[in-house]
């Protein structure tokens, strides 16, 4: 079986500052792949390199190969196609300055979907999956930026699902969401796993333990350990630092 995502010897720089020091790993289709690691370890940067928004920042540089479905992301014919293949949920919710409806319909519209009926249906489905539909169904026309922080976060999840991605990247999605709603979304993720590959970056190590099949521990731009979640969270991971981190003994 070919890997959904294959990263080989990735190095990245913001100007002079190096973030990743040559990391390699792969993500299987339809798995939930957890990434844990302390602040500044390069988790967000990694996701941005995968959907090629990393290059959007001036002064960045990268070496190594990232391939999605066996295709080097740097060489894809249509980068917009690639980005639509990947749903991205940023850690701080970014509600576009549009209505709730337009936020979710943004990606399908950009891809050329015009049919109102189809759009309505899609918007409802995505908002439902993101556990937001009931709260906003009566005010789809109000500004997305007027929602509460947690609602905005769920709006960005709905938005990320709106282009029916094959890969869903969640970057600390639950920072602004209460535990009950978080649980609801986690359940949705378990269902979505049937249709897509999920990369879950999280600061809540227990969340990775609950959801991920395999977990990678990233530290200062290097992979300390990448293994089955049972191993990482089991009594004896290969590296002592992993053990300390998941048990909260670090620093």
């Amino acid at each position, binding site marked *: 079986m070919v890997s959904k995502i294959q990263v080989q010897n990735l190095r990245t720089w913001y100007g002079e500052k190096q973030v990743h020091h040559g990391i390699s790993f792969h993500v299987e289709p339809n798995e939930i792949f957890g990434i844990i690691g302390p602040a500044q370890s390069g988790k967000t940067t990694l996701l941005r390199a995968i*959907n090629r*928004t990393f290059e*959007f920042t*001036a002064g960045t540089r990268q070496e190594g190969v990232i391939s999605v479905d066996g295709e080097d992301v740097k060489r894809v014919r249509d980068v*917009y*196609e690639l*980005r*639509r293949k*990947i749903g*991205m949920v*940023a850690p*701080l919710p*970014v509600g*576009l*300055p*549009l209505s709730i409806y337009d936020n979710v319909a*943004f*990606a399908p*519209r*950009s*891809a050329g979907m015009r049919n109102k009926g189809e759009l309505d249906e899609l918007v409802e489905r995505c908002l439902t999956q993101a556990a937001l539909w009931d709260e906003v169904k009566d005010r789809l026309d109000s500004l997305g930026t007027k929602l509460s922080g947690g609602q905005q976060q769920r709006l*960005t999840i709905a*938005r*990320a699902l*709106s*282009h029916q991605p094959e890969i869903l990247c969640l970057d600390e999605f639950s920072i602004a969401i209460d535990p009950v709603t978080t649980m609801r979304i986690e359940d949705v993720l378990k269902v979505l796993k049937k249709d897509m590959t999920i990369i879950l970056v999280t600061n809540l190590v227990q969340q990775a333990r609950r959801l991920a099949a395999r977990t990678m521990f990233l530290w200062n731009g290097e992979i300390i350990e990448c293994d089955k979640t049972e191993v990482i969270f089991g009594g004896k991971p290969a590296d002592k630092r992993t053990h300390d981190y998941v048990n909260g003994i670090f620093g």
Partner: protein
Amino acid sequence: MRAKRPGYAVFAEKGIEWIIRLCGISAIIFVFGIFFFVFREGGPILWEKGTDFRLGDFFTSTDWYPTSMENKRYGILLLIIGTFTVTGLSILIAVPFAIGGAIFLSEFCTGKVKEWLKIIIELLAAIPSIVWGFIGITVINPLIQSWFDVPVGLNVLNASIILALMAMPIMVSIGEDALKAVPDNYREAAVALGATRWQMIFRVLLPAGKNGLLAAVLLGVGRAVGETMGVLMATGHSLNNPYVKLDGSFNPMWMFESCRTLTATIASELGETSVGSPHYRVLFLIGIVLLTITFIINLTADLVVKGIRKQK
């Protein structure tokens, strides 16, 4: 023991605070002072007896004969039409270029190119309006004559082009600020959703920056309304309603008609009046009209900009 600042430092701070406060207040005093002095010169015409001035005719009459011997008329309707026509057309010309320039500067330009472009745009802003007037007469005038096959090239179109060029720099730089103020997160979120650069610009950037862009346009309008020397030279400065033909029908070629503006009238006639005469006072009254127009425009721009801040 806790550290304690010496007494003079506390005093110095108070002193500085007062100096700054004075600077702020002085700006207010200047604005009111200008209104006051202009009104002191122009106002008395409103109540002085024995003049031919009628307030009712002032805004509605097309007769402007301030130097006639026995039949003086002070109607500024033609001048108002001239000012609004030239300003309006110039903004129509300038806005697409200015917004395009702002988008180019903030989204497509980096490093050296951007720096140089900004310097050049600032240079453009620094060209004195009389030089623009020369350009209107010597460059644009013959161009209009040959392209559109009209007898005179000093007309509404000529002045509008010059005004557009003059108003553009401020519109571009304020517009660029407005676009730069749109958080990068928005751009990245839109791009991550598979939007192309243009989709991002039209569906996210422009809606998000629309208030700032509007403020930029309004400031450009303010600049255009108040402009004098350039339009005096480029409009042809004849007392004429560009929209009406001699037989009284609508003139579709209004762009190629000559006209006269409020500002140019003051500049060209004030030197020939005697201080305190009705003509002199009416010219100052026109000054008040101009002040009011620019005041309203600036106020609108301010309110619009405030709207931006509130949204964030």
